[in-house]
């Protein structure tokens, strides 16, 4: 059953408007197609490195759409492709960074791929040492609170990174100062090759929240609607002065850790086959089709448009010039 325009405009599914769900789906699809293109480019030897977010799309879209995208402060990590695209970065922005070209908004070609930043969209710079963004996010949130602003800070990291001291110190501040902060843990159960059971002796990362006096929630990160609802609650609480939520979204990492990782050394073929079944993208697609919100035709059109976007971004980035070598020399200090 395919809807008419009027039906679509007023349709809801599980209490959410159809066009919101379609936007979320589109955002997931866009990230996925861009991600796939990056893998292909790497295997073709055209880019040096790629670290992927496949399997995380549903969780990231649920959280992004619960925020004031582009306004609230976002401190993402390297797997947050869906998140940064949803919050206002373009596929070209991402591609320029991956190719290390002039005009890369994240770093002007100085940082590795997927080290996103975008000042205008309030996307803070991704670092390589993990979890450093979490206490910085606490600082961002603290400044917001001290200033009496109404924006919140959202930061994301993997479950392995929650073992860093940075994480714990950040939550200390968050709890003591009731910071307007959401700390999102995208738990895909692998820190490169180390499984969750070797990283922590607790079944949920959100169990850590109680130790710091903050809210702890675990949600199915493969379900964008469930994640969206949980994120909206966390965001509302943060914005209204209710303090911090540690929001754990359970996701899957469909790919090796990075383009250089050989995950066959620690994940069996059966494991990986089972993962594919959990792929949130086709699951959401199916769900929307069953609800009559998305048709095959529409999906095809979306896909074509998106692949077109990706093609344009890819080609434009490939022909864009490299930064002049003088750019490597500085400036080092702000004026």
């Amino acid at each position, binding site marked *: 059953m395919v809807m008419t325009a009027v039906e679509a405009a007023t349709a809801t599914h599980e209490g959410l408007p159809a066009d919101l769900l379609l936007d979320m789906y589109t955002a997931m699809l866009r990230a996925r197609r861009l*991600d*796939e293109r990056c*893998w*292909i480019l*790497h*295997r073709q*030897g055209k880019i*040096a*490195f790629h670290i*992927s977010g*496949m399997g995380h799309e549903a969780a990231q879209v649920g959280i992004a759409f619960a925020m004031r995208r582009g306004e609230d402060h976002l401190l993402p990590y390297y797997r947050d492709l869906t998140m940064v695209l949803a919050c206002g970065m373009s596929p*070209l922005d991402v591609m*320029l960074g991956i190719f*290390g*070209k*002039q*005009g890369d*908004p994240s770093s*002007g070609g100085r940082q590795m791929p997927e080290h996103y930043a975008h000042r*205008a969209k309030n996307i803070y710079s991704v670092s390589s040492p993990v979890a450093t963004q979490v206490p910085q996010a606490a600082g961002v949130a603290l400044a917001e609170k001290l200033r009496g602003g109404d924006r919140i800070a959202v930061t994301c990291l993997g479950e392995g990174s929650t073992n860093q001291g940075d994480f714990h110190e950040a939550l200390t501040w968050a709890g003591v100062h009731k910071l307007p902060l959401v700390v999102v843990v995208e738990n895909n159960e692998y820190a490169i090759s180390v499984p969750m059971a070797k990283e922590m002796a607790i079944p949920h990362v959100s169990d850590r929240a109680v130790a710091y006096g903050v809210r702890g929630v675990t949600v199915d990160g493969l379900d964008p609607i469930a994640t969206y609802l949980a994120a909206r609650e966390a965001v509302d609480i943060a914005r209204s002065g209710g303090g911090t939520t540690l929001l754990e979204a359970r996701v899957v990492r*469909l*790919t*090796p850790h*990075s*383009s*250089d*990782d*050989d*995950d*066959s*050394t620690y994940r069996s073929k059966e494991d*990986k086959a089972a993962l594919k079944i959990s792929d949130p993208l086709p699951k959401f697609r199916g769900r929307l089709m069953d609800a009559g919100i998305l048709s095959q035709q529409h999906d095809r059109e979306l896909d074509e448009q998106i692949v077109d976007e990706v093609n344009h971004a890819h080609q*434009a980035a490939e*022909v*864009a*010039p*490299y*930064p*002049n*070598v*003088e*750019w490597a*020399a*500085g*400036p080092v200090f702000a004026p």
Partner: protein
Amino acid sequence: MGTQVIMPQLGESVVEGKISRWLKQIGEPVKLYEPILEVETDKVTTEVTAAGEGTLLKLYANEGDVVKAGTLIALIGAPNEANNEQAHVTQPEIAASSAEKHNGSSARVSPVVARIAAEHNVDVSLLHGTGEGGRVTKKDILAYIGSPRPQKEGAAMKVEPEKLEAWEQPGLGELFRPTEELFGKAAPTPASSTPIAPVTTPAVTSDAVVPLNNMRKAIADHMVLSKRTSPHVTTVFEVDLSKVAAHRAANKAVFERDGANLTFTPYFAMATIAALKQYPLVNSSWSEAGIALHRAVNLGIAVSLGEEGLIVPVIKNADSLNLLGLARAVNDLADRARRQQLKPDEVQGGTFTMTNHGTSGSLFATPIINQPQCGILGVGLIQKRVVVVTQNEVDAIAIRPMVYLGLTFDHRILDGNSADNFVATIKQRLETWT
């Protein structure tokens, strides 16, 4: 016991052929090495000759059938053997079209071998078969699976033979190899000495990129393939066209009345065709099984389509045409080529090609062979030149219409001497035209 006619393997990767024409009917006598049928493959149309003498007793495939190489298609023998053959006949395998999976081997894969191969992810075409005709038997594949295969010490798991997406292929497992290994030279040139402020809008500059259309792609692919396939050598002769020019002047009006615009092209065509009959080795195609001599002379004439590219319509059985017929054929094909009205059949099946590059001013050139042919004749600009003529042992200077003919030939098939003889024949024909 008669002689079996087996569908041959006509090319390295040619696994089947279409029977386009039986040249003999049942009951007809067949001599040793006499052609008995024509087979069309995606590379070449060729004749299959008899390996024995006798009468054509049985046909096991019809015209139009696509038959796998190695299949029995006919039987030749003594007339009275016709009725005794049933017991020894093996059913031909009529292959379906492209639905059939080709693993690059011409031998059949039995069901048990196919099952074992699928279970163990083995590519059967890589195996050595000890069965009939090189077939991989069950024993062969079990032996292959059972035998220990050399493993690299400490190697990461190999990429599966099945097609994996880029993100399903494991990485090397080595993080951050030296950049030189990835990119060769580092990124370009130091430019200005002023530091660049961060740019927020992307600065995209490129020269115009002309997208490739299908014809361009097809031409490109063919040219590259041709050069890779044949060792190309070009030999150039100079021809005095005064006799041809005289003939043309005398006959142009008559031909016009008969509906043909008489250009120089039909003259070159006729001379070439005659030379091809005299030197059949030039009217051929290379194959690992042997040089396939084409009985028909299908002459391709390259037609330029300007910026769009070029196309080669083929005059089939050009040896059956006289000058008028050739003139008409050339006119017609060139005309329809430019209007893009050629039929697919008309651009296939050529055995030799002529190209008139002189019409655009070129004196001589080194054209690229139109695969799978043996040679291509380039005709240059017809130009009045000063030449030395000798009459009664007296040298004099004359002004003659001269042209360079360049033959590019496949040096696998022809040597310089035979190629030159061929062109010399053309020259001789043109210079003695009456």
